[in-house]
């Protein structure tokens, strides 16, 4: 699905990403981990086409990412960004309806089919309850659920999540991660995500891409990559692996 070769990116003489190479196949949930400022969001912005590549190449479905138009890309990929602030009282339903924009012709209202997609996505994310409420009056976690509903309404082949659960409580985080995991397995959705919670990352990801100082430290299957030694290397924190499943963070002072 995505192949990245010799990717470099610098901003104002500062090298942010150095020689990144990887290939992501369809139907996998990949999580990018790494300390603050390691280049995670930059990498995500590059593969979503939000930023232009300095050197190296990114291919999406065997074609150069650059060769896609903004519209064509928006019909295949969706992004849930970090902390979107809305300053105008759009209703939540209006926001989710914007997710259908890539498929709709100008000056027309959404047709019945599009509206059904919107309502289904709102049902899945349990946001129907505040459909007619203004997005400006929601809590951070509720707003993130609406933004995920909007991204799902784009019926994407690839879904990018940039800390999409940062304000959500644990109940909804797990509900939505299960929902996405389900879509990955059944509908071959590809998810590329940035997450800070290592326990959840370990539980839900198929693959891990670890970044440190703009370099890719490791990339591979979750069970193989998530080792206490790697976490120590990335974050300088001691953790131990649970006997049965998952990781337990054990901070040491």
């Amino acid at each position, binding site marked *: 699905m995505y192949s990245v070769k010799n990717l470099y990116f610098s901003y104002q003489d500062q090298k942010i990403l150095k020689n990144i190479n990887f290939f992501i196949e369809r139907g996998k949930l990949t999580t990018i981990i790494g300390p603050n400022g390691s280049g995670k969001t930059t990498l995500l912005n590059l593969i979503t*086409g*939000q930023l232009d590549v300095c050197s190296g190449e990114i291919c999406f479905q065997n074609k150069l990412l650059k060769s896609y138009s903004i519209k064509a890309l*928006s019909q295949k990929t969706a992004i849930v960004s970090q902390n979107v602030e809305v300053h*105008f009282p759009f209703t939540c339903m209006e926001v989710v309806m914007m997710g259908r924009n890539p498929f709709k012709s100008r000056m027309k209202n959404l047709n019945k089919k599009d509206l059904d997609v919107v309502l289904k996505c709102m049902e899945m994310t349990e946001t129907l309850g505040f459909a007619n409420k203004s997005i400006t009056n929601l809590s951070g976690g509720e707003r993130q659920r609406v933004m995920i509903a909007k991204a799902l309404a*784009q019926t994407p082949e690839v879904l990018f999540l940039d800390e999409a659960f940062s304000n959500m409580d644990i109940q909804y985080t797990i509900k939505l991660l299960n929902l996405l995991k389900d879509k990955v397995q059944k509908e071959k959705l590809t998810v590329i995500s940035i997450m800070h919670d290592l326990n959840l990352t370990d539980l839900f990801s198929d693959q891990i891409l670890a970044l440190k100082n703009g370099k890719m430290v490791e990339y591979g299957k979750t069970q193989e990559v998530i080792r206490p030694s790697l976490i120590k290397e990335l974050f300088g924190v001691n953790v131990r692996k649970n006997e049965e499943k998952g990781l337990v963070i054990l901070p040491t002072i």
Partner: protein
Amino acid sequence: MENNLAMTLKRKYYKEKWIGFGFAVLLMITFFSSINLGRANIGTNDVIRVILGKIADQHEMYAVIKESYAAIIWNIRIPRVLVAIIVGSGLAVSGAVFQSLLMNPLADSYTMGVSSGAAFGATIAMFVNMFIDGFHLSITLCAFIGAFLTLGVVVSIAKVKGYLSSSNLIIAGIIVTSILSAGIKFLKSLAGENVSVIVNWLMGSLASRSWEHVFISFPIIMICIIVCIYFSEDLNLLCLGEKEAKALGVDTQHTKRIFLICGSLITAVCVSVSGIISFIGLIVPHMLRFAIGSDNRVLIPLSALLGGELLLLADTATRSFMNVEIPVGVLTTLLGGPFFIYIFMTRNKSIQ
């Protein structure tokens, strides 16, 4: 639940259409009654006769009416009423556009510095006309040039590596505005006892606007409003930020440029024909957002209708009901400000 929501949506579309229709009818009624009103007492029949006769080019139809009355209707009142409508529409639409574009509910055409540029251009023209004999600069033209030069300066300050960010635009706009206001004050201080000409113009007035002003403003503002309506759904997406809009298929740099140019063009024309009339651009989109929501596809056309209506009402009030004609720009702020505070407070209370 789902069916309910689909129904609510349908009802909303329906309601929006009716509000639009209502506003249009209201504007028509206000248009005719404004022509009827004024110091000279002219009957409704005569007004209709003059309008029909002029349009059909039949002089006999209004030959019975005193010539001075026909002139008052056709050469004074109608152009003034039309300028009021178009300027009000333009100010309201450019306000709505700049608010969404800059993602700032407090923005309007003044935030971008465009109107100060227009005012500065006009001040220079008046200054030159005062002090250099045998030289006559058109105030309208100079205001126009001033607005566009300012837009160019603001955009080039705000541009970083070819990209325009909203916060940079606001900062650049505020800086340029303060420099230009200082420039205007400087010219005022040099003008000495003739300063009142400049002061009066800056206060914003629609007095003695002629057909020439209608012909300058009407086509440009109309075209810009239509362009804004055509691209209004992209503006909705831009309200969520540039990144979101791009992810939803909007060519953001291109779309931003279109709205920036349209919004500034409208402002330049408005300021050049009427001086500084503030508050319409801020208050009209806000009132409508309280009533019908933020969807720019509805907000922009309704802003045009309501903005035209409000400025026309204000202007008719200043010229008909008061003993001294006060500048309409002063009235819009005096009445609009407290009203805005009122709806703002009731809305905030109803939320809690």
